């Protein structure tokens, strides 16, 4: 297990991202209050230098939005992101931007179709003066070599590459600025199964070789288990559980995490239970449930505490690394019942 330095490299503190919704004329006339989409709703997170943290959750949980806040593409509505202890300003300057880079999900939209690979890479190298002008070309080759692409790729256009190759070019681009932190937002979701493995192996290799700190955002729990040292689970804009990888997968304490793990189909065709792991649909982020956001779908929700009190992230007794946001995370589990949404 990686030794955690006293100060984490990256800290997310109380970050929220609220998007105001435009009211239609009819709603305005009715005097309805402005709706707010709480994509990210008060998130605390820490990344130690050199570690790989997985951020998992289903669609709508806010993980991509959080990732973009960290990279500086969105300005958080509340809270701050701190790098080496110092808060990152809303408008980041060039030098600061270098530190945190991102790899995106869609290989077909990640690269400018009108630029060759060389142009895409060289543009960044030159803008930041990463190497002296005459060395730009050589550096482009080095970057491609790092991700396992030949020099032939330099003068090719994105349309000439497969999905997996495009992702590698995106990774090379992210690494061009020699960042300390790499945020990978679902880097393999859009790729074929056997190609996913190539890109995942590449990310692991680069992390070790370059000492990168990696934030891997994914919805695939198996992928995260393979790559990450620690995992954080998100639901409806909040972190509901964080723990070292093996601990989370074998001893999850939050009912949503437990449900999520049960829901993942396994390669071993066993006699899985007939009942679905988690029932109901996730509620709309515009109209969040009161109290604990998960209570309508929770099999152990207890009135009235779960409907009124929003549980904070609490650590297990004697554990520093494992936190969960459930009133019953570390106490005796109440008996299971039919969740509110299914009654």
């Amino acid at each position, binding site marked *: 297990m990686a030794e955690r330095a006293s100060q984490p490299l990256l800290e997310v503190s109380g970050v929220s991202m609220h998007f105001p919704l435009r009211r239609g004329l009819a709603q305005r006339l009715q005097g309805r209050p402005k709706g707010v989409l709480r994509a990210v709703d008060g998130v605390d997170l820490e990344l130690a230098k050199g570690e790989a943290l997985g951020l998992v959750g289903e669609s709508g949980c806010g993980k991509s939005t959080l990732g973009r806040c960290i990279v*500086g*593409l969105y300005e958080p509505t509340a809270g701050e992101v701190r790098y080496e202890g110092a808060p990152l300003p809303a408008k980041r300057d060039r030098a600061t*931007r270098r530190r945190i880079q*991102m790899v995106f999900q869609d290989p077909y939209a990640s690269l*400018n179709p009108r630029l060759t690979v060389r142009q895409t890479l060289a543009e*960044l190298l030159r*803008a930041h003066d990463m190497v002296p002008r005459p060395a730009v070309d050589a550096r482009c080759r080095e970057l491609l070599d790092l*991700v*396992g692409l030949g020099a032939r790729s330099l003068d090719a256009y994105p349309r*000439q590459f497969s999905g997996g190759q495009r992702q590698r070019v995106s990774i090379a681009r992210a690494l061009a600025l020699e960042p300390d932190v790499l945020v990978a937002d679902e880097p393999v979701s859009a790729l074929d199964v056997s190609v996913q493995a190539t890109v995942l192996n590449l990310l692991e290799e680069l992390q070790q070789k370059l000492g990168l700190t990696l934030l891997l955002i994914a919805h695939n729990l198996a992928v995260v288990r393979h790559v990450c040292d620690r995992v954080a689970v998100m639901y409806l804009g909040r972190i509901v559980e964080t723990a070292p990888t093996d601990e989370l997968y074998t001893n999850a304490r939050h009912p949503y995490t437990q449900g999520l793990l049960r829901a993942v189909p396994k390669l071993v065709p066993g006699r899985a239970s007939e009942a679905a792991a988690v029932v109901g649909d996730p509620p709309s982020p515009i109209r969040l449930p009161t109290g604990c956001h998960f209570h309508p779908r929770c099999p152990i929700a207890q009135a009235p505490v779960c409907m009124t009190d929003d549980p904070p992230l609490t650590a297990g007794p004697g554990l520093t690394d494992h936190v969960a946001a459930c009133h019953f995370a570390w106490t005796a589990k109440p008996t299971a019942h039919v969740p509110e949404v299914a009654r």
Partner: protein
Amino acid sequence: MGAAAESFAEAAVIEHRSGFRRRWYRTPSFVAGLSILGTIILLALLAPVASRHDPVQQNLLDILQGPSRTHPLGTDELGRDVWARLLYGARTDLRVAFLAVLFPFVIGTAIGLLAGYFGRWVDTVTNWFVNVVVAFPFYVLIIALVFALGSGTRNIYIAITIVGWVSYTRIVRGEVLVAKRREYVLAAQAGGLSNLRIIVRHLLPNVVTQAIVFAMSDIVLDILAIVTLGYLGLGVQPPTADWGKMIADGQTYLTTHWELSTVPGIAVVITALGLSLLADGLADLLRPE
């Protein structure tokens, strides 16, 4: 096996769909449009050679002649050679139309880029201006402006620019609103590239294709506008040859010498057809993949 070693064994860079250069001759509409337009432009350029007469030279002894060996399309009411006037008219009209499209294209695209990318007050102000201009019918505004400014080609450019930038702004702004959310633009922002660079290098080439295609049809519209202005006596001044003026002047003789109005009219139609086909073909070819 390291990732690097694996990928060298990976298949060579895939050469899928070919670029513009390889596909253009296989797109029928593009080829047809280019041929038609090319022929017209060629004839216009070669006007001094293709016609043996001076388009403005009057010959009052030989007015309203039918087609003959010296005058392949006959002469008009002032004895001028119709064929020569047709060719020189092409020169005038095509040049004016092309330039008249260029200014709105450049200005409209620039404003559209800025409004779409920066949003907020820039967008609001732009939209306000767009709505004002769009409230008036195109021809009414053009004619009113030319009337106010006085006739002549320079004022045609000014009038069309004042009215025409709006379409380009709307098209480009719409495209930019979508394009600026694409991941490669986000990557450029995350990479700390300046806004100017992002707009010019990453947005412009990817949003301008729609505007270019529109520009083709805009040339058609502008030719018609110039022809209309010419017909109303507000456009290109005599004795310069201009299809609009030719149509107008030939009106009086519609019952006797109908070809004086009809021939330039047909020329306008063929030119418009060529441009439309070209626009169609370009729309096909310029799509990125």
